């Protein structure tokens, strides 16, 4: 029973991180119908930027959130304006943009490799190894912080998408870009903005990851795959769906250890991914509309 409590707490904390990781990917897909494989690069880059800010300038990882998100927002916008814009979107361009952004990811990996070498790095702060007790279970302070920040980020995003003009514009474009053109929304601008926000979320995910895990230039691949699983489970683009998808994945991974050899728990997410794609292409909690 105690083990169940422990697993529940750790799944819950993990789910917050998964949701942030996945949301950037889901948002970009939901609006542009582009699968952003460079998301893995954003996560990795976010981790390195945090590491540099912490190591060189001594900025606490959580205080550097605006810097990291801002930097990746700009990066995302530039990426959109410079490359993605030229490709067809939607079903027709799916393959092209997927491969293009895969190329961008490879470039980012190589850049990180040249800048930081292939060594594993970790961000260590004074509270990195501090634990606290939650429901009678020892958990890392960092993990709780990551969870709280994830909740705040998702909440803010939800507010942004549902309550602000720009957010509403994004949702409108996601539903029907053509009619948006008619009512005077600058669709191109919305696309660039969305790509920027999605990338910023990738950077944030990297930042949060860097406080818990070690990373290197190849990092991000596993996170990308898990993000896919979450997006596929949760349906594209809804904050609530993504959160539910993240919960399902985190719980499935954690609890599978009770019945599977621990080595195979890593495969649970992938198997889930394939099964859900085949059975419920719209997602377990299936709506595709943002909000």
């Amino acid at each position, binding site marked *: 029973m105690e083990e169940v409590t422990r697993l529940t707490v750790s799944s819950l904390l993990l789910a917050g991180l998964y949701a942030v990781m996945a949301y950037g990917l889901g948002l970009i897909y939901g609006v542009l119908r582009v699968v952003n494989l460079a998301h893995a690069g954003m996560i990795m880059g976010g981790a390195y930027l945090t590491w540099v800010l912490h190591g060189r300038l001594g900025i606490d990882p959580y205080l550097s959130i605006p810097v990291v998100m801002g930097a990746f927002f700009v990066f995302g916008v530039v990426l959109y304006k410079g490359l993605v814009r*030229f490709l067809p979107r939607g079903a027709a361009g799916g393959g092209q943009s997927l491969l293009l952004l895969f190329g961008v990811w490879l*470039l980012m990996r190589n850049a990180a490799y040249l800048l930081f070498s292939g060594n594993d790095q970790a961000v260590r702060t004074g509270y990195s190894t501090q634990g606290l007790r939650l429901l009678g279970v020892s958990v890392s302070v960092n993990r709780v912080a990551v969870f709280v920040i994830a909740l705040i980020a998702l909440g803010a995003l939800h507010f942004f998408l549902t309550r602000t003009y720009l957010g509403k514009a994004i949702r409108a474009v996601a539903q029907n870009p053509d009619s948006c053109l008619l009512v005077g929304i600058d669709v191109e601008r919305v696309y660039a903005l969305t790509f920027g926000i999605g990338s910023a979320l990738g950077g944030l995910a990297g930042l949060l990851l860097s406080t818990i895990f070690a990373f290197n230039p190849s990092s991000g691949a596993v996170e990308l795959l898990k993000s896919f699983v979450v997006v596929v489970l949760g349906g594209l683009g809804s904050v609530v769906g993504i959160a539910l998808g993240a919960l399902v994945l985190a719980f499935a991974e954690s609890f599978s250890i009770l019945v599977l050899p621990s080595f195979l728990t890593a495969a649970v997410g992938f198997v889930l991914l394939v099964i859900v*794609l085949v059975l419920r292409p719209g997602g377990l909690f299936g709506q595709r509309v943002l909000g």
Partner: protein
Amino acid sequence: MRRLASWLPEWASPWAAAGFVVVLVALYALPLVVVLDPYTHGILTQTFMFVAAALAWNWLGGYVGQISFGHAAMFGVGGFVTARLLLSTDLPFFAAWVVGGLVAGVYGLLWGHPTLRLRGPYFAIATIGVGEATRLVATFWSSFTGGSSGISLPIPSGDFKQALYWYALYFMAAVVLLSYYLRKSRIGLGLLAIKGDVDAAGDVGVSATFYQDVVLVLSGIVVGISGGFYASFFSFIEPSDMFGFERSISLVLMGVIGGIGTILGAALGAVVYVILQENLIASYPDLYLGLYGLLLVAVILFEPLGLSGLLMRGARLVGYRPGAGVAAGGIGGAAATEATGGAPEEEPTLEEARP
């Protein structure tokens, strides 16, 4: 030429067939005429194998438009089944390759039948899941794969390694022919219809389910045989190398950089990939990922037909008119903009296989 042409199946152009035969004979005779050191010999052998695997990937990625990031699954299954057969039975090695390939094909069908109904990015994502799940299970299943210690095969004799060159050549030749057949025959049209518009294809009688399954099984068999061949060639295989994501990616890179959807492209892609891997990477190891990234971005933005498209441009500069078949390549999306009549596509120049 005319008389020769009447012997050929109608989808084969006599010039292409003649070129194919010439290249094949030249490559066949190469080690007999020139003394190749075992290193060059081995690189050529591997190149042939990768050309076959890249072509097979291209059947799915280029002909049907379903980009697979999970072909390592079949490569690994083929390799390990072959290795197990060679270790525990008296089966001749080529029979072991074929059985390995068949098992890989069946495995492909197993995951492909449900997932091929997905289109575009959904299929690509599903294949990543399939590939990674397969890798994990294979690594864990140590009684079959030897776990992370892998499986060692007996060291082949020098003669056998020499002979592998010709086996690889025959294998590649067969796969080139099969590619040509798939592309030019009735089936090829059906596949292009599926790639173009899967629903409209169904509405004129093309069964997407059936043909996609067939293509995946064939592709799986060939990639599986490549895996078995790889096992024979290196005499040591290990799950993280055989089933690794990097392996799947390498097939994607070969297909896309060479020119997706064209025979010449996939073959060229494999050749260039091996050249890069062997020479460039050994000399500039810090830059190779970025180089692939750059090539990928450049291909997608400017030359969807990759290196083969580039060759076509070159050929056009000297007055050659490429055929309509070229329009069938590319990743998906925009319609062909050029039409120059029904001349057949250029034959892949196997001559390029020489590093």
